[in-house]
């Protein structure tokens, strides 16, 4: 063995922290970068909070008269019903846009810095996905300040459920966005996926109308849509007294959503970890 002095690789290796802490340090740094980049783009911050607010008020007021949320909830206004839907919409938009940055990272070359770093690939996916999750969840939770406007006064338990479902929904959507965006090199292609796949995911999640009011195949699609369960748990958290608006228990819903999140996260990880004879970036 060459002496320590004559072998710089070994010297540096000793100065390093163990591999597990490098994983967290790398994930942390990528997470932090997502946040810094987001808040430096003021228009992004404004757009992501303002557009769902606009949607909520316009759609909510417009549909209000022609909508019946189902037995027992007829007295609820549509603004009331649509509130969690608007919140999930904020989460969806923020998740999607933050994962679009992955395509930007690829095209602008930043991935070239990340991929040859001596870190577990899980750190790369984790940092990026948690960054998007944080942004999406925080934006979504900020929307809760409008709760008093619709006469909702959150209980502690209700708030807990709302936070948990928002976080999980954000994590699921960001992981999904990551898995989709990883192989893409154009934002246009990603837009096509958004319109074709991600928006319908939201439309058919109980955001606009409850599963119980849908029939046949539509209902079947809504039941296999993982976002339905996040929406449902959130609804339970916001309106604990109006049980009839929710279809499932919050515990089961969150479990299903967590299972889905884990699957897409693993899918994203597998995609990143795969090395081939084609250029990685």
């Amino acid at each position, binding site marked *: 063995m060459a002496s320590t002095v004559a072998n710089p690789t070994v010297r540096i290796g000793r100065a390093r922290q163990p591999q597990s802490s490098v994983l967290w340090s790398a994930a942390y*740094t990528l997470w932090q970068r997502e946040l810094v980049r987001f808040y430096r783009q003021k228009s992004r911050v404004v757009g992501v909070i303002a557009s769902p607010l606009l949607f909520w008020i316009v759609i909510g007021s417009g549909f209000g008269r022609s909508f019946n949320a189902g037995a027992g909830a007829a007295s609820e206004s549509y603004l009331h019903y649509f509130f969690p839907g608007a919140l999930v919409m904020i989460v969806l938009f923020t998740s999607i846009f933050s994962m679009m940055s992955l395509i930007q990272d690829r095209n602008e070359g930043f991935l*070239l810095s990340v991929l040859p770093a001596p870190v577990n690939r899980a750190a790369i996916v984790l940092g990026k996905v948690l960054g998007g999750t944080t942004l999406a969840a925080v934006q979504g939770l900020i929307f809760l300040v409008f709760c008093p406007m619709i006469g909702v006064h959150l209980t502690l338990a209700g708030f807990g459920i709302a936070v948990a479902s928002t976080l999980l929904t954000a994590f699921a959507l960001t992981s999904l966005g990551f898995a989709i965006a990883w192989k893409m090199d154009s934002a246009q292609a990603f837009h096509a996926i958004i319109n074709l796949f991600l928006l319908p995911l939201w439309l058919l999640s109980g955001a606009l109308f409850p599963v119980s009011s849908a029939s046949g195949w539509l209902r079947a699609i809504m039941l296999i849509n993982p976002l339905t369960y996040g929406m449902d748990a959130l609804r339970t958290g916001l309106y604990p007294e109006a049980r009839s608006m929710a279809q499932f228990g919050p515990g089961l819903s969150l479990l299903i959503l967590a299972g889905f999140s884990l699957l897409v996260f693993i899918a994203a990880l597998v995609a990143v970890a795969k090395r081939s004879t084609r250029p990685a970036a």
Partner: protein
Amino acid sequence: MERYSSGQDIETAMTMTTRTLHLPDASVIKSAGDPIVLVDNIVHDYGERRALNGISFSIDDAELFGLLGPNGSGKTTLFRILTTLMLPTSGRALIAGADPVTNPNLVRRSIGIVYQAKSVDIKLTVRENLKHQGHLYGLWGASLNRRIDEMLERVRLLDRANELVEKLSGGMQRRVEVAKGLLHHPRVLLLDEPTTGLDPGARRDLWQYLSELRDQEGVTVVATTHLMEEAERCDRLAIMSSGNLVALGTPNELRAEIGADIVELEAVSDAEGLAERIRGRFHVATQVLNNKVRFEQDEAHRFIPPLMESFPGEINSVMVSKPSLEDVFIRRTGHRFWNEVGEQGGTNGKHGR
């Protein structure tokens, strides 16, 4: 895949690598005389197209090594394989004792990379970029800050540390790239056409700095280039053409193999015919390249007068020169440096993806 477990000592990891690879002597990982970079019969195909056709060479510790070749010669392909961004179709490489295929993370620790294209985040400041880089390599806190200052001082950007990268000039951005590549004290620095987009002054500065690195810190520098004057500054060169290694040696050795002078004639009309007749008369191996008659000749100055007298009115101009690296390239490949069909497309384009 990242295979070595957490907390494992790097020495153990290295020993394990060598064992699994069945290197000749598993007890010695990297002793003085061993090459720090070994490229052994690497072949790479992009689908049907062969980009590397069995390349082998080795690089010694603290060498400034150049990979010279026109666009499409396979330099960038080899670069991607060595930097663990791509697996070779076949063949093997070793960098500081580790195989990029089976043990990418060990290779990644030993190498620093400077790309032809940008790899910094222009929306962040210089310091933020370097901080992220440090964290990715497990550097942290005060020692990282010290190292960042040290690197910024070296590339003379300390006063611009808190500016967004997008506000810097192209040359300064390149310097950020270099600082980033060297932050974690890599043993081998790999650069892919590092002077792309730089003016001649900045180009000289960068190469000057690479020599200093080799001399003062013993860093092995491997740079790809398509510029002869850059290749001249390397200790040793591998010249590539169409995925093949066509020459290997110091610039002086390579030029010395030609020995003779280079004569180039511009014919008034028929270059092919003139070449034919010169060959018949003076028994020299003539070639026609880009419509010019070209041959190698000892003591060419004595040769010119009889040549001119033999073909009055047929020669527009004559040029005699000492052999250059391009002449080495022509001798080995039979065609000019820039005649090859570009594999990557444009001359100054970014990496293909």
